[in-house]
């Protein structure tokens, strides 16, 4: 071909391509075959009130549904917890419904475990397989061979699972979550004699002192406390509340503070006691409150004698002047409020440190007062040591005594390998998973009985720690189920019916909805004259029962026999020479404990502090990074006595030089195409601390080594520029 012909031809082809790009075809207009008879008006949305179950906070949501499809989720303005606001995780619940990798029907394993090879079976066959195993256990008189592992369930579902396991005759019922507030409950029990979580009246307070409680990101009820924080700052005409944050890593919450006190990890309790001692020594305490709680200032001061300023300053790594200043501000501003969160609780001396913070609230008279703390009324009782139960279950499984494990949730991801859970679970001959995505646990299951998505489910959601008035949020299906799935409680009921005998008698309800209605009816305490069906519809329209007749807990009072809190010195896994840095594994704003990872909206959500998207990273102080020759985005190896991970570095001035931090939530082996293979799971590094029956996930030491210059870090902004300063001054 001649050059000229080639060029002419090329021009013609290019012109053709351009013209073709301009041509847009008419769209199609597809009519309904048979219009649905529910009064659907095409083009118009219907709003359904429901509740969010993406985290324990239990916010109310409104779902816009048009043409029978859920389109958008916003907060329910009537709901007392979130008052119309909703976080990113709640908004992403709609992506659970339409996730392309949902398990559409029951599955049976047909390859080696963990290979992900499954065949489709019918529901009848699936429930049949499960009942056969359970019947075999009944025949062999070893009903304790059944184990049920779930997240913390509340309300009707908790009652149902409890009754199922009790009637079957098994004690192996563990409800475990990684970010469990168990330790906060233990601390409350020791100090106040009741396991109620505190409800913080942040909106009304004038001085907020948070010890590692990231209440804007993830602590207990972030939407509630986030908006209350806004109230505290700007909601009043003449007062702008002051906020001091104590903790070695600058979280989003810490970044919102007026003063940041980067205390050494594990020293927060000591610092609280140092502040308490100063308040006592300078007589800045509320003597009425002390007397009311049966405490004597003199005795208390003597008990806290060890916590003098120089020693506390040395232990916490903070300047004496700053500590004294905060103590005086805290004591002289009323009302003042001190919070303790996960960063403190998950240290080896966690519960005692949390108690030390309680003592601060008591000293300034903030118990049961506006702007102080009240006992939580939403979910006043809950598991107090699910970790000990989990460890016991692991022992039972390791001994080969568990024959059937029914698992809701993803413990293979969220239980740290250091507990030995992974090996122990491998010894269970039959694993049933109820996950709606093939997560790490479901990949190892023998039978997958997929649950409905939240927007297809019935349920009651009892919020944790966000309310002073008891309330029950209701979940209702807003769309027809997309696939051949069944709700977890329905499967339990069907299994009980199949088993017959005592099981069928104990769980006679035809459907979970009937059970739920019965429970709500009891909770609401309707009189005889009330038409319950009409009242039920009314409750569904509003999103729940916001005025219950349950007894409200009276209030906090220091137990007469409670000793003053005395946190021991923190204990860390790994010796300081080999492993010079403290590791903090904190819940990522987008993923919580990892359950947000499958949704692309959350994967694309830039981390609020580092702007990283899609992946994991390790935060290293600029000083430390310079010492080790690590640059922004370099690939770094982080090793602990437990394991080794490779991930990109973020040079981050908002962290102590002797600390590194990795967000939780990534590093799934399964869980669909968006989560799979993204980042790493920092739990692989976490060591189990000593023989204590308490999780101390933030008490591991690590070392870091630079591997290469290419860590494949993706950021949405340009934090290299803005993070170059030396923020930490110690």
């Amino acid at each position, binding site marked *: 071909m001649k050059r000229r012909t080639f060029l002419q031809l090329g021009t013609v082809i290019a012109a053709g391509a351009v013209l073709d790009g301009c041509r847009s075809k008419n769209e199609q*207009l597809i009519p309904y075959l048979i219009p649905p008879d529910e009064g659907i008006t095409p083009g118009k949305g219907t709003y359904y009130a429901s509740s969010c179950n993406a985290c324990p906070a239990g916010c109310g949501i409104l779902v816009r549904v048009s043409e029978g499809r859920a389109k958008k989720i916003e907060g329910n303005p009537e709901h007392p917890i979130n008052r119309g606001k909703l976080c990113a995780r709640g908004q992403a619940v709609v992506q659970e419904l339409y996730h392309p990798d949902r398990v559409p029907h029951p599955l049976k394993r047909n390859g080696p475990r963990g290979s992900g090879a499954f065949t489709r079976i019918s529901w009848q066959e699936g429930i049949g397989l499960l009942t056969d195993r359970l019947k075999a256990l009944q025949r062999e008189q070893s009903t304790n061979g059944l184990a049920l592992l779930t997240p913390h369930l509340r309300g009707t579902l908790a009652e149902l699972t409890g009754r199922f396991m009790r009637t079957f005759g098994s004690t192996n019922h563990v409800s475990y979550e990684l970010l469990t507030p168990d330790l906060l409950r233990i601390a409350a029990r020791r100090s106040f004699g009741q396991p109620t979580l505190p409800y913080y009246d942040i909106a009304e307070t004038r001085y907020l002192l948070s010890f590692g409680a990231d209440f804007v990101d993830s602590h207990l009820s972030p939407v509630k406390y986030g908006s209350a924080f806004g109230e505290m700052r700007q909601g009043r005409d003449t007062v702008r509340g002051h906020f001091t944050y104590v903790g070695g890593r600058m979280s989003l919450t810490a970044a919102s503070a007026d003063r940041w006190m980067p205390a050494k990890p594990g020293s927060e309790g000591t610092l609280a006691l140092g502040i308490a001692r100063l308040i006592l020594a300078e007589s800045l305490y509320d003597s009425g409150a002390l007397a009311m709680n049966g405490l004597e200032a003199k005795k208390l001061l003597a008990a806290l004698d060890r916590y003098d300023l120089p020693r506390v300053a040395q232990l916490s790594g903070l300047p004496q002047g700053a500590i004294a200043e905060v103590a005086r501000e805290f004591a002289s501003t009323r009302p003042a409020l001190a919070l303790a969160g996960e960063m403190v609780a998950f240290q080896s001396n966690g519960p005692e440190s949390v108690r030390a913070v309680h003592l601060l609230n008591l000293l300034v008279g903030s118990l049961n007062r506006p702007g102080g703390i009240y006992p939580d009324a939403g979910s006043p009782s809950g598991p107090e040591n699910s970790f000990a139960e989990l460890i016991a279950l692991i022992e039972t499984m390791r001994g080969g005594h568990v024959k059937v494990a029914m698992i809701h949730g993803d413990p293979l991801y969220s239980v740290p390998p250091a507990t030995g859970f992974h090996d122990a679970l491998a010894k269970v001959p039959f694993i049933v998973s109820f996950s709606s995505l093939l997560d790490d646990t479901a990949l190892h299951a023998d039978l997958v009985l997929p649950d409905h998505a939240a927007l297809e489910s019935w349920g009651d959601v009892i919020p944790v720690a966000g309310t002073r008035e008891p309330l029950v949020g209701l979940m209702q299906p807003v769309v027809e189920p997309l696939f051949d799935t069944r709700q977890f409680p329905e499967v339990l009921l069907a299994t009980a019916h199949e088993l017959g005998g005592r099981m069928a008698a104990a769980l006679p309800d035809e459907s979970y909805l009937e059970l739920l209605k019965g429970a709500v009816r009891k909770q609401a305490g309707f009189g005889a004259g009330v038409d319950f069906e009409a009242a039920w519809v009314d409750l569904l329209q509003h999103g729940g029962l916001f005025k219950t007749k349950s007894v409200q807990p009276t209030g906090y009072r220091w137990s007469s026999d409670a000793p003053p809190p005395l946190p021991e010195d923190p204990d860390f896994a790994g010796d300081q020479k080999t492993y010079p840095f403290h590791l903090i594994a904190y819940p990522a704003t987008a993923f919580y404990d990892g359950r947000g990872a499958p949704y692309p909206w959350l994967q694309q959500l830039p981390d609020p502090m580092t702007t990283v998207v899609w992946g994991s990273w390790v935060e290293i102080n600029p000083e430390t990074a310079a010492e080790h020759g690590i640059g922004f985005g370099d690939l770094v190896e982080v090793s602990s006595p437990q394991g080794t991970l490779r991930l990109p570095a973020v040079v981050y001035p908002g962290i102590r030089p002797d600390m590194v931090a990795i967000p939780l939530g990534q590093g799934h082996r399964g869980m669909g195409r968006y989560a799979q293979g993204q980042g790493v799971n920092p739990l692989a590094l976490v060591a189990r601390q000593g023989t204590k029956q308490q999780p101390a996930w933030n008490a591991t030491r690590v070392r870091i080594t630079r591997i290469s210059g290419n860590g494949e870090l993706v950021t949405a902004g340009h934090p290299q520029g803005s993070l170059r300063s030396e923020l930490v001054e110690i």
Partner: protein
Amino acid sequence: MNKVRLIIGLAIVTVAIVAASVLLYLLPLDVRDHSPVQPIAFSHKLHAGDNGIHCLFCHSYAAKSPAAGIPSMEECRACHLFISPNTPEIKKLMKYWEKREPIPWVKVYSLPDFVYFPHMMHVRAKLSCAACHGEVAAMERITRTASLKMGWCLNCHHQHKASIDCWTCHK
């Protein structure tokens, strides 16, 4: 010499760019078919014209929803089970029904996503359907008569003293 050439060259390029822009602006870039062939030769003339069926009888959502809607297959079938069931076009319709397939009608009027056009407000304002859709009752095959450009919308809003705030349509 070189300088003159450069200036002339630049002038030509500028003129060319301006001309191209003007041309792009004037050209009918909307290349959608204004009167596409439909899968079934549905005659609006017959239905709306000769038989005098009101628009809202079939496009029943126009009065209460942003979308006017089109009749479902069930509704078409319900009438034509008895009305001229043996004509070739009705047989086509019944074949679709038997196969449980909806008819893929070709859309003639469509607005981009950034325009909010509610049918119900225009019906409520007593605007006749023909104001936008033309004399549909005389059309064998539906033909688009309006340009659907923003200026066209604005003219009408001006004439009827309707709001011309951006937020009215772009939300």
